[in-house]
């Protein structure tokens, strides 16, 4: 066995691959072989490191050097300088935005310091296409333990004690769900893994499947053992080709090693996994809609009960858990329920993965203990607001979550505290907004999404969200009335109260929470016909300050609609009726004469 002195871990997540990390990987390999270092240096593709903002990432072990935004041509320098001479390539190191110093070691990066990685434990650490690396991290030991030392009831008891709750959004206790499904009587039952991640910007499930597919396979088998199912199905978005590929490789390896199939670990337990592809409909994240989609029917929810645990896929008892939930399971079995329950807040145990996005310095995937404050996430891990702007709001829980503000920053976030604050955990989307964001437009942005993604089955969601969106549009155009605000609020509550599934029951949240927290902004649009953040085009006016205008004609020459008139060396004027608010004049004026009113 070769004793490697150094490992170069290259991120093979979708984000980094989009910035040529595959070519980078090949370049590094080529350099290593050209320098004759194959026996000393191992180059490995891993899953996502989470720090997607600065990808592609290369991590050098054992010294934990963390290179960011590495290009394929940087391979030569990394090998020549770092690997051969032991000198770190400074220009590729992460720069702390506050101190502006290079940080050589991931242990000292704010992004990683406050994180605790359980679900993402192997992402960015192992080669997801190598089952042995997974096994070396105690992979499949939990399954072995369950099958050979524990009864299904004992495993379920352990899961219940751990306090693990569903990470897909509902927060339903996982152990309880398994118990209910285990008690349903049927000749066949199913374990379904919900990998139909649909929240805009959220990609934790994709990252887990890309970076650590075996953890999901192992957990599904454990679940199958508990509920009495021999068949598992992963329902995954067809838009996740890399995750599908890695999952397929992992399933093949697990079968070859006898970890899927018959007589697993010499017992009479058998388990097989199938893959079904979703077409990217957001509503198919809802478990009944997901099951219909799996059956080849229209992806739309049906009323519960009956719950899938009683009558699900092909009308058989079905346990549906999401990817992140499953990824926690093997660790809980290995390290014990008590260990897991010691992490997190009182009612929400363990960690949660969030997808940080928006106007924040460190965009990426993070995992923190439940009960971490929003302030820690945004300002410590996220590195604060971009370009030194002021924090305005953070939207959690995906398109149906709410917008939280400054006053919520010190809430210890978990399932219950977020709901109490008027938002939700959802699947862990977290979008940060700064002072430049118009909250009415933000609410409209989310409604655009839910209008698009409603399945159309129930009237309040199908038509109600459309009407909400239209009213928001009206307000953004300065045509809203005070009565619209009453209608908006009433309709929001009715949609929440009467919609069939979780999509409609939460879709008005962005409207309600922005009305609650940013009411003056709504008033400004309606009463003053102004957009305080200057985002709503219809409410902007570009005007020329006579004092500053020197009559250079630059603005008039660049106006695409000839809305600006004025003599050379004379004062120019913008005709508001013709102006299309493109901003070209503002950009071209060198004398600060054009401004937005």
């Amino acid at each position, binding site marked *: 066995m070769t004793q490697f002195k150094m490992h170069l871990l290259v991120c093979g997540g979708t984000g980094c691959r989009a910035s040529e990390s595959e070519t980078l990987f090949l370049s590094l390999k080529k350099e290593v072989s050209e320098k004759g270092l194959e026996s000393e240096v191992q180059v490995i593709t891993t899953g996502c490191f989470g720090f997607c903002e600065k990808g592609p990432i290369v991590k050098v072990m054992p010294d934990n050097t963390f290179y960011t935004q590495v290009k394929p041509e940087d391979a030569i320098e990394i090998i020549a300088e770092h690997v051969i001479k032991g000198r770190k390539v400074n220009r590729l190191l992460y720069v702390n935005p506050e101190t502006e110093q290079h940080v050589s070691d991931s242990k000292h990066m704010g992004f990683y310091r406050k994180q605790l990685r359980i679900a993402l434990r192997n992402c960015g650490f192992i080669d997801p296409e190598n089952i042995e690396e997974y096994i070396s991290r105690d992979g499949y030991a939990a399954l072995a333990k369950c099958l050979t030392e524990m009864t299904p009831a004992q495993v379920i008891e352990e899961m219940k004690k751990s306090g693990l709750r569903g990470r897909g959004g509902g927060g339903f206790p996982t152990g309880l769900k398994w118990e209910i499904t285990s008690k349903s009587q049927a000749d066949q039952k199913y374990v379904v893994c919900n990998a139909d991640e649909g929240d805009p910007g959220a990609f934790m499930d994709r990252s887990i499947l890309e970076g650590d597919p075996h953890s999901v396979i192992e957990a599904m088998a454990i679940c199958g053992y508990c509920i009495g199912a021999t068949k598992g199905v992963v329902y995954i978005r067809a838009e996740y080709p890399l995750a599908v590929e890695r999952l397929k490789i992992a399933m093949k390896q697990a079968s070859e090693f006898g970890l899927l199939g018959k007589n697993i670990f010499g017992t009479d337990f058998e388990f097989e996994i199938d893959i079904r592809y979703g077409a990217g409909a957001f509503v198919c994240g809802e478990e009944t809609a997901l099951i219909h989609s799996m059956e080849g029917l*229209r992806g739309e929810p049906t009323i519960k009960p009956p719950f899938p645990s009683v009558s699900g896929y092909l009308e058989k008892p079905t346990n549906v858990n999401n990817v992140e939930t499953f990824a926690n399971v093997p660790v809980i079995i290995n390290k014990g329920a008590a260990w897991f329950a010691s992490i997190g807040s009182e009612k929400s145990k363990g960690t949660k993965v969030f997808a940080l996005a928006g106007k924040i310095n460190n965009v990426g995937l993070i995992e923190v203990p439940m009960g971490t404050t929003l302030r820690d996430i945004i300002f410590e891990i996220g590195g604060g607001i971009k370009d030194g702007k002021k924090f305005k709001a953070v939207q959690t829980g995906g398109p149906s979550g709410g917008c939280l503000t400054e006053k919520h920053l010190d809430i210890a976030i978990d399932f219950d505290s977020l709901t109490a604050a008027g938002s939700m955990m959802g699947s862990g989307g977290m979008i940060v907004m700064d002072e430049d964001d118009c909250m009415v437009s933000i609410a409209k942005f989310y409604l655009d999404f839910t209008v698009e993604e409603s*399945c*159309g089955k*129930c009237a*309040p969601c*199908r038509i109600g969200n459309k009407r909400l969106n239209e009213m928001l549009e009206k307000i953004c155009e300065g045509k809203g009335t005070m009565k619209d605000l009453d209608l908006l609020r009433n309709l929001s509550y009715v949609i929440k109260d009467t919609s069939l599934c979780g999509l409609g*029951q939460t879709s008005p949240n962005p409207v309600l929470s922005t009305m609650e927290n940013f009411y003056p902004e709504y008033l400004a649009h309606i009463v003053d016909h102004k957009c305080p953040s200057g985002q709503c085009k219809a409410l902007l006016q570009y005007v020329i300050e006579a004092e500053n205008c020197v009559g250079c004609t630059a603005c008039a020459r660049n106006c695409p609609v000839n809305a600006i008139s004025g003599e050379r060396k004379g004062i120019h004027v913008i005709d508001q009726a013709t102006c299309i608010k493109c901003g070209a004049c503002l950009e071209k004026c060198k004398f600060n004469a054009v401004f937005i009113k």
Partner: protein
Amino acid sequence: MINIKIDNKEIKVAPGTTVLDAAKSVGIKIPTLCYLHLHDFDITNKPAGCRICVVEVKGRRNLAPACATDCFEGMEVNTHNIRVLNSRKTVLELILSDHPTDCLICPKSGSCELQTLAQDMGIRQIEYQGEQSHYKEDTSPAIIRDVDKCIMCRRCEMMCNDVQTVGVLSAVNRGFMSVVAPAFEMNLDHSTCTYCGQCVAVCPTGALTEVDHTNQVIRALADPSKTVIVQTAPAVRVALGEEFGMDAGSIVTGKMVTALRQLGFDYVFDTDFAADLTILEEGTELLDRITRHLKGDKTVKLPILTSCCPGWVNFFEHQFPEMNDIPSTARSPQQMFGAIAKTYFAEKLGIKRENLVVVSIMPCLAKKYECQRDEFETNGNPDVDFAVSTRELAHLIKQANIDFNILPDEDFDRPMGESTGAAVIFGTTGGVIEAAARTAYEIFTGKNLEKVDFKQLRGMEWIRHAEVDFDGTPIRIGIAHGLGNARKLLQDIKDGKSDFHAIEIMACPGGCIGGGGQPLHHGDTSILMSRQKALYTEDTHKTLRKSHENPYIQQLYADFLGKPMSEKAHHLLHTHYFDKSKPAEISE
């Protein structure tokens, strides 16, 4: 039994009872829209999509749809507090905001469930206005889809898929543009639609209606160069009265004949006459096949399937074309009537077929398609010119200022108005095969049939099996109504598991009494039961109850056709079937 409280009334209900049913049992009528429960057929549509029936359940976060929420011990329900009323009204306003408001000229006006609901809820303005969804209109030979009026109740989808297993209609598109349509939003006439009209029968709004032929009929009646004759299907006479406020099951044969004469038809005839003729042709074919089979002729295909239902004919042509040789080749009564009228009767009158207009009054929308089939015309002139539904006839009568309820009874004209009790029961499931049995028995055994009521063939169960004793020879008979049930029997035949001699199939639940052209039952299946009972009553009141005893039929054979299955009969009264399984081209 479990204890619950609805609007402060304490009641006991059986486990599994919905809130809607529990409320109904104590006189609380929670409004519904998408919900449809056809009690006698055990058909339920409850997608819980319209959200009109929402109620407040104590301890529950959101409102619950009463139609799809089961009662539980200790449940407390409030069906009309301010939260519930406001939500219900808002949701209804939303539905109305995406619905055309051309009620005055909508074919469904007056029998539209959405209109009734808006009236009951006292909607006077629609607060939530906005864009409306628009789709292309689709006109087929029998059914018009005005999809802008679809409210996504999914009743038609349920009938088309779960009951009929035709699978043409289903929800397409997403969100605001969701609508029920054939795949790829193709037109119905490019799909495998059978035109059974069950979608039309359950549509609560004007989204699905029949193609209206009343204007063509009025024009023909006004044309002095034309002789216009009319035939009325058996199931019409026990349903038409409902359109004039009469109880379900009222027999209005006499009034109907009077009304048709007042409308100006030159001869008022009866499809029942053709039904008797059908029995002689189909019954003879049946006996021929059975006799050969009993003699050991292996080339004989059994069972023989009835062929008088055009929805059913369309169904097997699309879905089981490889079995096109199993159904009887006998045309349906409507088409036998047309063929005889434009030959035998036209000759009698001494006029050209082009100057004879045959109108049929049918409980059925597939009849509209059937009479337009190429094989049922001669030199471009169809045997039956127009098929209008029971509902359309009611409109014709109303337009002609006829006070239907006080009309005297009159009798059909001769020769093609005479019929037997056997023909009347064609209008219900089980009726055709009973009529056939009455005649076939006597021909097969050569004996007189004393007891003409074959009670074992009657009923409303989806699939029925019975044995009729032909004087020592047991004849095994199967009956199915609803195309989904027909499919089961067909599949059995295909799999070689069927041992029936004869099978009767009707496309619509209940047979023609539940046809797509009948007065709307709005989910009350007791109406169908009453119509069925009325048909059997009409049968017992007839002096003649066996088709072959009809003197005018006997005369028709003597004067014109010769004998059943003769060459002339074959030419005029029999047909052949087509393989329509190939997908039609998708039109733009």
